[in-house]
């Protein structure tokens, strides 16, 4: 039986999953893991976890970088770039059409109600994500203090987040956490 070469198979699967990644790419991570590690054996569990950690530590959208790193492993630089396009290309086309449609009905009263209902849930999820991140980074009261100080500085001052991140990185690098 002839099957497509690994990079083509991975990119095609990724593009399909991108279309149904409602709630973000993390929602299709189990599917990706199953394909890449369990079914095809293109990467080990350890590599998969490393890709995830690296993607979280780098600038940019983590899931695009993670899929590119898998694509790199499967098919070199071309695989990496094709994977990046497949991760956000199809979903972006859907988003574009959806935003266009929602903009057309922007002032309809039902849409205002929908937006008012959506926002609180979104905000709760954002704050929960911060909490999860804080717990994952937690190494005791020092790390918790940095998290609290960073939140306080953003809410209470106009200081740039960049300075907060640089300072926190320096504190971490000096071994104070």
């Amino acid at each position, binding site marked *: 039986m002839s099957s497509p070469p690994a990079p083509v198979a991975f990119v095609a699967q990724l593009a399909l999953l*991108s*279309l149904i*990644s409602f709630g*973000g*790419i*993390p929602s299709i991570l189990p599917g990706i893991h199953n394909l890449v590690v369990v079914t095809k054996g293109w990467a080990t569990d350890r590599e998969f976890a490393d890709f995830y950690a*690296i*993607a979280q*530590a*780098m*600038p*940019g*959208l983590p899931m*695009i*970088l993670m899929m*590119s790193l898998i694509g790199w492993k499967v098919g070199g630089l071309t695989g990496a770039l094709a994977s*990046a396009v497949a991760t*956000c290309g199809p*979903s*972006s086309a*859907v*988003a*574009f059409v*959806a*935003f266009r449609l929602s*903009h057309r009905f922007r002032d309809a009263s039902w849409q*205002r109600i*929908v937006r*008012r*209902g*959506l*926002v*609180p*849930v*979104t*905000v*709760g*999820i*954002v704050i929960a*994500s*911060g*909490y999860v*991140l*804080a717990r994952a*980074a937690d190494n005791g009261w020092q*790390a918790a203090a*940095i*998290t609290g100080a*960073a*939140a306080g500085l*953003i809410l209470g001052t106009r200081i740039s*987040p960049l300075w*907060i*991140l640089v300072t*926190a*990185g*320096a*504190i*971490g*690098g000096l071994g104070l956490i």
Partner: protein
Amino acid sequence: MMDTLNSREDVDVTLGALFLEFPKIGLCGIGSMLVWTRRVIVDERHWMSEAEFAETLSLGQFLPGPEIANISIYVGSKFRGPIGAIIALLGLTAAPLAVGLVLGTLYLRYPHPAVIQKVLGGISAAAAGLLIATGIKMLMPHRRRPAALFFAALAFAGIILAKLPLLTVLVGLVPLSIAVAGVMSPKAE
């Protein structure tokens, strides 16, 4: 309505501005892209009001794909149509992807000093604080609506205490939250 009063439909946003600002968001966004996206779009450029930003994020979260990519598509297409959407999305993703691929493959290939891990630990502790603060800022336009605070708390509890998946929380709470928003008409608030 606050969200229509404050949004700047009249602001002239050039393709060049999109091309400059989105790579900045992409490259600065370590730990959380959302912090920088909100800061640049709401605080620095005033391309959206606080309320419009929160609404766009909600929609972006519901749609397939990365939510921040979806916000860039919204901003690009709002001001400059399809070309604007493509420029914003490319600006957001291209530069950080190049940096990430180079550094990522180097990191995987060569041994690295332990201090990098410690620096990253400090950065992610602060990034967590920035994300929490960003969520609180987005809640501010709704702070006088008890129903909004209630559903925000419920979504938080669903993820943290009940440990439900994101999609379950969205699908379970959003219809309820919309129903309550519908019953409490804007006049009453």
